[in-house]
């Protein structure tokens, strides 16, 4: 009787642990995915404007690149959070 209870309890525990791991993975995925979308949205406008400016004046390339990659930090944060969640 008691052995059965222990067995059920341990399978339950394993199931809970597995589901927690799954939740973590979902969280990590959301962190990377949503921040990626955020970065994309932010870079969209900057990138278009930067390309326009570079078309007018090639010297703007360095500065344009700089402005375009500024929102990239957002997705890096997402990646960091994701990695910390998983490991």
């Amino acid at each position, binding site marked *: 009787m008691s052995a059965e209870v222990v067995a059920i309890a341990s399978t339950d525990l394993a199931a809970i642990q597995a589901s927690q791991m799954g939740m973590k993975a979902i969280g990590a995925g959301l962190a990377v995915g949503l921040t990626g979308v955020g970065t994309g949205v932010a870079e969209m406008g900057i990138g278009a404007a930067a390309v326009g400016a570079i078309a007018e004046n090639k010297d703007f390339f*360095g500065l344009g690149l700089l402005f375009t*990659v500024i929102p*990239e930090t957002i997705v*890096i*944060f997402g990646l*960091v959070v994701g*990695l*910390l969640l998983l*490991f």
Partner: protein
Amino acid sequence: MLKPKQMSRLLIAASKDQMAPVVAELYRHHLFHVEEYVEGGTEGYEGFKIGSPLTGASEASVALLSIRAIENAVSINPEEMDPVRAGTQSELKARIERELPALEREVEELSGKRSKLDNRVKECEQKITEITPFVGVPADLEMYRGYSGFSVYAGYVAHEVTLAVPHEMHYLKGKEKNFVVLVAPTAQRNEVERALQEASYQSVPIPDETGAPEARVGYYQGQIAALTREITEINAKLDAVKQQHAGFLAACEEFLRAEVEQTEVPLRFATTRQTFVAEGWVPSDTVDAVSDSLIKATGGKVFVTVLPSDPEHDSVPVEYSNPKFAQPAQMLMDIYSRPKYTEIDPTLMLAIVFPVFFGLIVGDVGYGLIFLALYVGLKRMMKGEDGQKLLTVFRNASISSIIFGLLFNEFLGFKFSQITGWILGTGGLVNPLEHYESLMFSRHLLIGSTEVGGHGPAIPALMIMAIWIGILHISLGRALGMYNHAKQDHGLHRIKAVVANFGWLAVMWGILIAIWSNVVMPYMFDLTGLPVIAAGFNLGTFIGGALILGGVICIAWDSVLEVIELPTIISHVLSYARLVAVGLSSVAIAMVVNYMAIGMFISPGMADLSPVGIVMIVVGLVIFLFGHTLNIALGLLGGGLHSIRLHYVEFFTKFYKGGGKRYVPFGIKRRFTED
């Protein structure tokens, strides 16, 4: 090193008859950055006028134009040619007079002919498109014209047309559009047109041709083939001209460009009726050489002197002064902005740190070797100077990737022990690398690993390493910022700016000390053991708090608005986590590709060498190649862009202004001619 080359302001004055030798000598030295004379307003230059070109300017310009036209026609680009000496200038001058007109005539004739033929090909193609709709109709083209009582309609319709009036019609059902040809009495025009309109009729012009449509299309196709043959012949002739004269043309262009530049430079000098004055900049260590040779060339009839200069108000042209290995990185600096004359030139730091960052991100011996092979291949193809510099930077980055690959124990996503195991394992030899893990924190993930208790990447350790790099890099940037402001600014502003930079440093380190005093983190200082002072917080927390507060006050003293930028301290430091994050994602892709290719296809295929097994091996190989090619492209983009971004955004914004004037010495680097 760390400073642009020192410049001196040179003033050259002589009588006008010495202008030609002075200009030639300056041009030969290729050192004198001409300061353009602007009429009016310049103190001490009252009554001076802008000079007029030397004799021969317009002739040289005309000849240069015709050379460039020829080069265009035969598509020669001197920039992309290997430098060959085609002869001395006097030889070239003679050859230009002798050979150029004939060559020009020949090329002009050929390219004129070619464009005429091109036009005729286009005409024929136009005819073919006009006739093509009629090809399916069994009627000769002259049948569509010349009726007095009938009208001919030809065009596309949406569906078949039904007519009550007597008519002759041919309907062709097509894939997208249906073609109809219709002849009906002109008297019933209204009825016919109404019926056609219902079928949404789009008229097609009837070609002005005779004979069967197929035959006409065939005829024009034959014409095009013949014309194309002629064009190919002309192209071959132009190519022959290119082969034969490329060196000569490039040398001519260089020679004439030199001529034009020399004859037109007086337009940038100040002149009076009898004399001229040229001002400009030369590197300080060449002043003596330049002035001596000027005096020699004019027989002493020139006055050369160094003017006092004020580096802050004069716009001094900036030339880099770096050790040889750091010079290619100047290109990366120019993409951002050239340093100002008075500020620190960070090229050397960029040249060292950029490859390190790149290596940290890529960190794979296999990819590093592939990058090196790419470098060797591209070096032959790229001819421009900027391209070569970029490639040298790329080479350094590749070597750094190999070094970090050794430290990370990575080869195309495998461990070395796996590779040596495969090579030596079949021979039954001992695997010497079996126990080599890695000298740095491992980045190997547990993808497809069946090893029980195998440990994954050392993420926390790697993250902290990246954060440390960020802290040190940013601290260096702030320290340089303090130095730059101390050097460049004056008075109260200077003190404020230096203090503000110190404030940023203090806030950053204050935050760090406060964190260390409360949390134990691997590979970081542990200050939790300090004596507790009040409210459960220890000494370190208070020191940290005091630093933060003091720092904020320092920043606010310079500019209150800057205080809202405080969160960037954390975001900039954390931004260095990309060194690990981007690298890990590249390792993950490599390992997934390896697992898919080998674990899922090649190994099962090898186990069973049936036709299915062989197909599986081939599929596995395709996945392997495609996946790694993709990862190489991503690695190049990620490694290069993120490394340079960490410099541009996180490092340079702390101290670097840029916006210096480029040093463009008067003269050219001769590649095809001799002095």
